[in-house]
């Protein structure tokens, strides 16, 4: 295996004497997804990629370029230098050396996982789904990947780390007349973990409950937001603590650190070091060590998520939240793993306590709302009506509308004791009162 850390240093050496500062980021990955569609194995893939990203500072401006072309280093440098004629003013210094924190994100069991074993897991998921009903159309995916990132800067940083990831996913489509039911569940993390039983049980549970549709009326309800839908409720918060939005004054939360904004029951952490979680890594896209910090602590705004630039602009320390989407974009602040602290109510008791409400498992289209206004408005793609403490069937054609800012302040009644990880979000169930649901007249 040729060393990507050496390659990063090689590109860096090409910039010497041509600019004031330089930062080279190299990522290499190899993944093997095994996909099932419509009750059958569809495709085995091998996806390899290697990408180079270069930022330079020259004449007080930042230039940026990327390339996936082997042997394309010279034109990469040329493109980045050309962009300094227009680039944003250089308000930052690229990272210097700092100790790479110990991090648990590499599992040797992942690369050595045999294709046969992955196929067998996929078959198992498919078979268990089909056993629920012969009319079911099931899909599944089992995937493994290896990832390596290296960074080198003119300030002397020279670091790399490796991580692995493993995921499995199953989906069920069931059609009765013109009524379609989709149910899915999955697991994703950096380590190989046999989560088949949990995933199968969740899908079976949701399928059984979802087969019967029950009527709903427009009105205000108690809603229990399940982990699969919590991400939609947290989206406005993560948008408003994003350092770029704060720095530019688009976030309504600029200058409000320390302020009590939510119910004291609510604490949310961003943790780039959480063992085995999918967004865990040693350092971020600018070489700043990843970290764990509260974003909301007992209802108070505790930290923004910052890259070098946002930190500089706000007079704060970078938090290790610079992300490079698909390895090729310029670094931007983003959350890593999000961890919501559990509450003290058992989920079963939480459901039992709801007289008239909805258990919301999945929302659709809620991302399209106005995040800076806290607006979360989405179709309840999978949700179950609760009557007198019992889930009684699936609700359809219903739009849930919550203002995340006011709901988590005034209407957060409880958080469950149990938590569940949905990719890089680990969260309890949320019980929110007085939520608006609109539906057909």
């Amino acid at each position: 295996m040729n060393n990507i850390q050496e390659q990063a240093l090689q590109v860096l050496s090409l910039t010497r004497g041509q600019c004031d500062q330089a930062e080279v980021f190299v990522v290499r990955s190899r993944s093997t997804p095994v996909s099932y569609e419509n009750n059958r194995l569809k495709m085995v893939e091998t996806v390899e990629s290697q990408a180079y990203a270069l930022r330079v500072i020259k004449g007080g401006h930042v230039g940026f370029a990327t390339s996936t072309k082997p042997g394309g280093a010279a034109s990469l440098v040329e493109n980045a230098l050309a962009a300094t004629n227009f680039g944003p003013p250089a308000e930052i210094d690229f990272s210097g050396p700092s100790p790479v924190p110990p991090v648990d994100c590499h599992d040797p069991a992942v690369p050595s996982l045999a294709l046969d074993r992955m196929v067998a897991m996929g078959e198992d998921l498919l078979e268990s789904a089909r056993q629920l009903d012969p009319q079911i159309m099931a899909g599944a995916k089992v995937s493994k990947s290896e990832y390596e990132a290296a960074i080198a800067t003119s300030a002397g940083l020279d670091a790399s780390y490796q991580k692995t990831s493993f995921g499995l996913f199953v989906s069920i489509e069931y059609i009765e007349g013109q009524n379609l039911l989709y149910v899915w569940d999955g697991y994703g993390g950096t380590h190989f973990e046999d989560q088949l039983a949990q995933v199968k049980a969740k899908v079976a549970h949701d399928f059984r409950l979802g087969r019967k549709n029950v009527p709903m009326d427009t009105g205000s309800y108690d809603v229990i937001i399940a982990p699969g839908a919590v991400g939609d409720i947290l989206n406005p918060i993560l948008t408003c603590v994003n350092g770029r939005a704060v720095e530019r004054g688009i976030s309504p939360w600029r200058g409000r650190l320390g302020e009590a904004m939510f119910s004291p029951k609510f604490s949310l952490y961003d943790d780039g070091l959480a063992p085995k979680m999918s967004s865990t890594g040693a350092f971020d896209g600018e070489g700043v060590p990843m970290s764990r910090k509260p974003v909301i602590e007992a209802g108070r705004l505790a930290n923004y998520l910052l890259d070098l630039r946002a930190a500089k602009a706000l007079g704060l320390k970078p938090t290790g939240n610079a992300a490079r989407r698909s390895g090729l974009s310029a670094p931007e602040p983003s959350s890593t793993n999000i961890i919501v602290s559990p509450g003290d109510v058992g989920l079963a008791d939480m459901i039992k306590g709801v007289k008239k409400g909805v258990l919301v498992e999945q929302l659709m289209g809620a991302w399209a709302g106005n995040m800076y206004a806290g607006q979360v408005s989405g179709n309840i793609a999978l949700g179950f009506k609760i009557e007198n403490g019992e889930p009684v069937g699936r609700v359809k054609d219903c739009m849930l509308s919550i203002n995340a800012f006011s709901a988590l302040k005034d209407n957060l009644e409880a958080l469950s004791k149990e938590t569940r990880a949905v990719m890089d979000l680990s969260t309890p169930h949320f019980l929110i009162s007085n939520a608006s649901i609109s539906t057909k007249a």
Partner: protein
Amino acid sequence: MKEQLLAAVRGKPADYVEVRVEDSKVTQIILRGPNLDNVGQNVSYGGCVRALVNGGWGFASFNSLDDLPAKVDRAIENARATAAAQRDKEKVILAPVPVVVDEVRVEVEGSKDPRRIPLAEKVKVFQDYNGIILSYGKPISSSSVSYVEKSSRVVFANSEGTYIDQEKVDLGGSIGAIAAGDGHTQVARVGFGGSLGFDVCLGLEDQVRRAVKVAGELVGAPTVKGGEYTVILDPRLAGIFAHEAFGHLSEGDNVHENPNLAKIMKLGEKFGRDILSIYDTGLDKGARGYLKYDDEGVPTEKTYLIKDGVLVGRLHSRETAGKMGEKATGNARALDYRFPPICRMRNTSIQGGKAAFEDMLEGVKLGIYCKDSYGGETMGEMFTFSAGECYMIRDGKLAELVRDVNLTGNVFNTLKNIDMVGADFCSYEAGGGCGKAGQGPLPTSEWAPHVRIQKVVVGGKG
């Protein structure tokens, strides 16, 4: 290149093999507030091989073309592994298509060719729009301007002898004004896009001024009251509706192996009133959804999905067409070399009708006129999309501006509830694109006139 690629896929121990090589340049200009946030020039280079063996598919993608035969072998090995694990041993039939040898070049007048216009000139265009926004003053707090241009050369060869060397240009973006006040932030945007000249980015000043005004007004607007309404969609939103609510359901990979869905999506069934026709086409030159050949080397066409209210077609890859005994329509598209082609839309359009906008308003006691979109999502028969600028309709007249409108519905009911289609068919283009199976944003277009729909559920406090 031609001989190398054809030789790599010819005579292999597989039922079908294809190779695709892409060399793209992506230019990105992003302005946020007074600053240029990012100007980047990116090179995206790589290739992929897809192989079919005994009903099983295998795929391999890579950045280096060195040792291409080994990469072809890897895709074939993956296909064998797929076939070996399949229990039903069902054959995959690829719909027959003509063998094509062609070279496609994008021809644009020199002064408009985005590939020849210096970066400095492009940056200035967007800085000028940004200046219009930022000079407005309160309540405008910031701006968000983005421009993405991708010019690529994609070379495709398959084991049937097809060889296509195709140039593509895709450009688009949005110019957004951000207004803040009263603890929330509102955005109004101007979208633009195309597949030919840079001129689609010019002359947007009046639209930008209008967006600035709307963003300011939205800050003071009340939120919409949730419930069921008669809605009139502007052409942009009507196009998004056609794409989200119906286009995705028409994609052949949903239906071809799914007898229960095929029963619902039976050609000849009535899906809407006689006034409704929806088609998807790759033939509109200049549209972001324009495409001469898809990523299976199949020539594109204009495919009617609904004609006079009746379901008449769907969007096929060679595999889904072959399975259903229908014709390949040129809808197999891949985002780039990292992905295999899947069934995707091109330019999905609602055909123009006869109604005037004033006629649509008439008789609406309480409704909403919805314009522009932040996007939407679909799952099975359910869809949602959000609107950017909405006015209440009261007693047949446009009334106050309302904010934060998100609509939802069931496609089967909603299509039947389209009771008026406007005569004002409009070829609107915007940046961004469509996402499916992790492949996005793929350039698509959505053209339409105004349409009126009865009984649409809108989220909000009751």
